[in-house]
């Protein structure tokens, strides 16, 4: 099984060699391989996009767009309607691992708890989930072995953890 990661680095030099060392088939970079947007408006319909927002209503609108392949829900509990929308439109819920490894304001335990609850809700609703670092800094990246362990830490079994790491490969 091949694993993939997505990052939001400013400097992407040497990313392919790093991907090989870290056990990924490819590390997708925001800006070149896909668009990381904060709202669905203005996304080029010919490119692949991931929308990241705290606004549940806006994300619900975003998943109806064909260009949007995945969403990142920040700091809010997903509603049942939102998870149902994700499942019916076959979009992926991306759980970012960088805030777990490099927490800013809230504690690491709180970030881990939030990610665990999000994963649990998604699995119960049969939504496709991807785990990616979405790192803005190289220090917040992780190898595929580390990501599998992080997936286990937030409640995924081995099969689900592997599926979460390979999910982005078929979409981008």
């Amino acid at each position, binding site marked *: 099984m091949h694993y993939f990661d997505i990052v939001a680095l400013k400097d992407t030099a040497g990313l392919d060699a790093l991907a090989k*060392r870290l056990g990924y088939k490819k590390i997708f970079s925001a800006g070149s391989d896909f668009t990381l947007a904060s709202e669905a408006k203005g996304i080029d319909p010919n490119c692949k996009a991931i929308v990241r927002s705290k606004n549940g209503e806006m994300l619900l609108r975003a998943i109806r767009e064909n260009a949007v392949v995945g969403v990142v829900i920040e700091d809010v509990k997903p509603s049942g309607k939102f998870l149902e929308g994700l499942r019916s439109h076959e979009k992926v819920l991306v759980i970012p691992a960088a805030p777990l490894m490099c927490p800013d304001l809230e504690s690491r335990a709180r970030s881990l708890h939030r990610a665990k609850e999000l994963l649990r809700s998604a699995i119960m609703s049969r939504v496709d989930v991807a785990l990616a670092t979405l790192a803005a800094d190289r220090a917040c990246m992780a190898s595929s072995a580390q990501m599998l362990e*992080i997936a286990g830490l937030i409640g995924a079994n081995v099969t689900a953890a592997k599926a979460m790491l390979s999910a982005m490969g078929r979409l981008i």
Partner: protein
Amino acid sequence: MIFRRKLRYVLVESTSALNLADKAVEHSLKAGIRAFMGEATYFRSNPRVAAQLSDNVFAISCNRGCERSVILALAFTKDIGPIRTGLFTIKTSGTMRSLKSHFEKLYEKGESA
């Protein structure tokens, strides 16, 4: 009864150069791992710096069966003293010889770390 320690070796790449010969740096690395693992798991896994292979690549030894805890703890260790760094686990092996051969294959054939 004589207990023979079975070890596993983990190849680790750091985003910043680390001089692990410096006891203070090594102590900070161990403190970072211990802070995430807790005292009991740290004692059970017994992680040690086994070898420094280049400026930013080194090997950590730990008790067999505890390597997954070490790999996870390394993912969450971001500050080693004043140095901000990411620690990526590249490979886990039962022998240093195999780890060194993997290191040579990966890093010494034109791919800089």
